[in-house]
């Protein structure tokens, strides 16, 4: 009767080893997971107004290319990333224009305007976008992205609103 209620020396060792081992594992294991994914949890999202060109330099109906770089600190290094797009003017009104992002919506190569094809062509998998950014051909799932917000400065310079991811 009494036997079954008492923990044998062996069982005591087994249980203690299990508990202590589990504790050590958890104390080192959980922080290790955070340690590995820390860069993915970092807040980015700096915002800025970026000048892309003079309104008077842009011709109606001809995509005006622009590009800019943003520098971000990643770990112990500063990483410069390039961005770009095309401003397409529709009339004399400085607000009557749309600004496309040249990052292909398929797998992020950079599209280029081709005057002959009258389309944006992607070098990677032959995608074709219209001047308005709609998909004409190729694998992209949706139209080119647009920079939604822009403004015109007093000097007649177009600026776009940019938010880092």
């Amino acid at each position: 009767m009494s036997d079954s209620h008492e923990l044998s020396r062996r069982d005591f060792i087994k249980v203690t080893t299990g508990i202590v081992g589990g504790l050590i594992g958890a104390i080192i294991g959980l922080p290790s997971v955070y340690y590995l994914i820390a860069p993915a949890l970092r807040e980015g999202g700096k915002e800025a107004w970026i000048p892309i060109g003079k309104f008077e330099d842009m011709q109606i109906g001809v995509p005006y290319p622009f590009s800019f770089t943003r520098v971000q600190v990643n770990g112990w290094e500063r990483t410069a990333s390039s961005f770009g797009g095309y401003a397409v003017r529709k009339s004399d009104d400085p607000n009557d224009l749309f600004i496309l992002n040249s990052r292909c919506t398929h797998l992020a190569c950079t599209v280029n305007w081709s005057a002959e094809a009258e389309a944006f062509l992607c070098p990677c998998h032959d995608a074709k976008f219209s001047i308005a950014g709609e998909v004409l051909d190729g694998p992209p799932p949706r139209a080119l992205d647009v920079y939604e917000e822009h403004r015109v400065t007093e000097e007649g310079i177009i600026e776009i609103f940019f938010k880092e991811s």
Partner: protein
Amino acid sequence: MWKNIYLWLDERIGFNDLNKNLLDRPEPKTTWWNTLGSASLFLFVLQGLTGIFLTVYYTPSPDHAYDSVQYIMEGVAFGWLIRGIHHWGATLMVILVFIHMLRVFYTASFKYPRELTWLIGIGLFLTTLGMGFTGYLLPWNQKAFWATTVGTQIAGTAPYIGEFILKALRGGPDLSALTLQRFFSAHIWMIPAALAGLIGVHLFLIIKHGESHFPTKDD
């Protein structure tokens, strides 16, 4: 279903035999001094794990080594913990391995048939010191730089072949990017591989011979 998987594995592996030979071995009367080898093994595994985690951020180039260690300490969640364990574990491992060796000597456990276990133990002690020596340079701070300058210089005082040893250790006459790179390679690949192999043979011999009886006054 689990039971079937267990039975399938058991039939091919033989858990009973394993258990009997590895965990349920007959032992003479033992003391806490007999735990030092296992403690050394635990630290080796711990150093291996934390070391692997360190390589996720550490970079062995003179331009970035220092900054990457700084980043581990300040920029990464729990980086201070992982590096802290690796840093203090390194010191503790050297101490433990040494005390383990002293106990084996004191209890005369190196005698027949365990001479080979002892010889391999000497290899284990030297490779453990090698881990400490090569790891110390990696943070690439002043202390690391000058400690390695002095350490390699000492090796260079050996008669006749001293200069060759110094150049081979440094990868040239000076402490340079080549030194950091080869110390890194030695620290994470060559010496750990040697250490793991030696540990394997060490453990095999221990299981084969069992623990030694401690000598009594009459011996």
